[in-house]
């Protein structure tokens, strides 16, 4: 059986189609927001929030709430808003606040699962949550619908706010002086990031989610010189790496999350090389 035949066989299963759909949507959302996050030196907010989402997941699991997204989503959004609303005057700086929140939530989540865990295989559960090894293949129709709605909201919101997001990211002082509601804009972006992280948890898991946010943007920056170009290319890289990664993981029986992230890392390395070569050519031409 060729790889293509094997793939089309798998595509007949609805859970595979669901996984591909959700994977592509999450990758699109996170790579769109990635450029802004990287440039605002907020690469770690994804990591911090994903740990908060893990803590919320543990609470939902212990409380026996099957629709755990309904617990995780609001908690993570609140955490994101709290992190961004503290402002510069706060006594605890941004990186410290992210570190505290993320470590505390991680510890609380693990403790809850360890003490009250219904199942005996705790380390297995934790691994699954952090690395998302199988959960994307067990998505329910409800999960898929929720992901689709959130993705449309995030992509639509990003498109409508694109010009303002650029202004705030490029030069916050200028945006503020221009009378732009910078705080409100930051708040909306924070909420979108939180939503993407909530949805992304089910794809690559909490730990590897940062890679999904950071890699496509950084890879696109190697070869594109405009913000629009970087944003579009990051979206393309994110989506194609997610789909290709899932296809590989189906065919080679590798863990989904790690495969996607390694795919992203590979594209980053490749575009680094392309950028370097092109830079050299340009230099020689001058």
């Amino acid at each position, binding site marked *: 059986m060729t790889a293509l035949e094997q793939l089309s066989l798998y595509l007949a299963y609805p859970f595979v189609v669901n996984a591909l759909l959700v994977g592509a949507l999450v990758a699109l959302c996170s790579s769109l927001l990635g*450029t802004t996050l990287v*440039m605002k030196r907020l690469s770690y907010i994804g990591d911090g929030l994903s740990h908060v989402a893990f803590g919320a997941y543990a609470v939902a699991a212990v409380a026996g709430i099957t629709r755990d997204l309904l617990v995780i989503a609001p908690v993570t959004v609140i955490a994101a808003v709290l992190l961004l609303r503290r402002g510069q*005057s706060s006594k605890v700086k941004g990186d410290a606040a992210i570190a505290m929140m993320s470590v505390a939530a991680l510890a609380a989540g693990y403790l809850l699962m360890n003490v009250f865990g219904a199942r005996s295989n705790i380390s297995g559960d934790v691994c699954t949550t952090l690395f998302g090894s199988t959960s994307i293949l067990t998505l329910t129709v409800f999960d898929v619908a929720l992901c689709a709605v959130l993705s449309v909201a995030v992509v639509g919101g990003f*498109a*409508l*706010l*694109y*010009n*303002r997001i*650029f*202004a705030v990211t*490029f*030069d916050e*002082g*200028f*945006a*503020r*002086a*221009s*009378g*732009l509601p910078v705080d409100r804009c930051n708040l909306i972006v924070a909420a979108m990031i939180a939503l993407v992280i909530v949805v992304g948890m089910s794809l690559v898991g909490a730990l590897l989610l940062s890679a999904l946010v950071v890699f496509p943007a950084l890879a*696109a*920056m190697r070869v*594109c*010189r*405009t*913000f*629009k*170009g*970087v944003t579009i290319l990051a979206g393309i890289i994110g989506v194609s790496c997610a789909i290709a990664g899932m296809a590989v993981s189906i065919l080679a029986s590798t863990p989904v999350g790690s495969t996607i992230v390694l795919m992203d890392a590979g594209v980053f390395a490749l575009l680094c090389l392309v950028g370097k070569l092109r830079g050299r050519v340009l230099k020689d031409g001058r």
Partner: protein
Amino acid sequence: MAYLFCSDLCVGYAGKPVVEGISFAVGAGEMLCIVGENGSGKSTLLKTLLGLIPPLSGRLGFGGGMGAQEVGYLPQGDKAQRDFPASVWEVALSGRVSRLGSRPFFSKADRAAAEGALARVGALPLRDEAFATLSGGQQQRVFLARALASEPRLLALDEPTTGLDPESSETLYREIDGLLTEGVGVIAVTHDIAGALPHATQVLLLADGRASFVGGYAHGTGNGGAR
């Protein structure tokens, strides 16, 4: 009628005053130069005027039908993010955000204004260049285009000639003179006293936590109590 005025203004951070007793008014075609040593409160004052930080006490307001969105801002050039992926065109067009109102996207008029601003500072040929790869003088010209794209009635300049070679500084001052003739009001915070003074109508010196006018320059009025 003054575009921007303040009387007995006190500026500072977190309730701690840095400069007190600031009173001035800037109207059409006037240029106020704010000078002083490092740490004398020049930047604090400019940030307060731009609404980035709240005043501690005193009065600060717009006149002559001005609004905050009609203030163009040229930040210190060396603060630009070195590795930010953006073209010159994207940076210039972002000057129009203050005119967006509730619209999500830029209109044809917005694009025309940004293009006009780029042409005016002679940066139109750089349109598709990456902003990060430009020289300091070129970046400053693009920032000026961004400020002019919003068609401001008042222009706030923060150390406009820092990091520029003499030729670029001269070009910038010529541009400012042109704007003054067209009736734009200018407020400039600067170290470059010798370069800026010939263009200023008023000079405000910040020292020891107080503001005082230095009179007698160019077309200067130097009227210490200018409301």
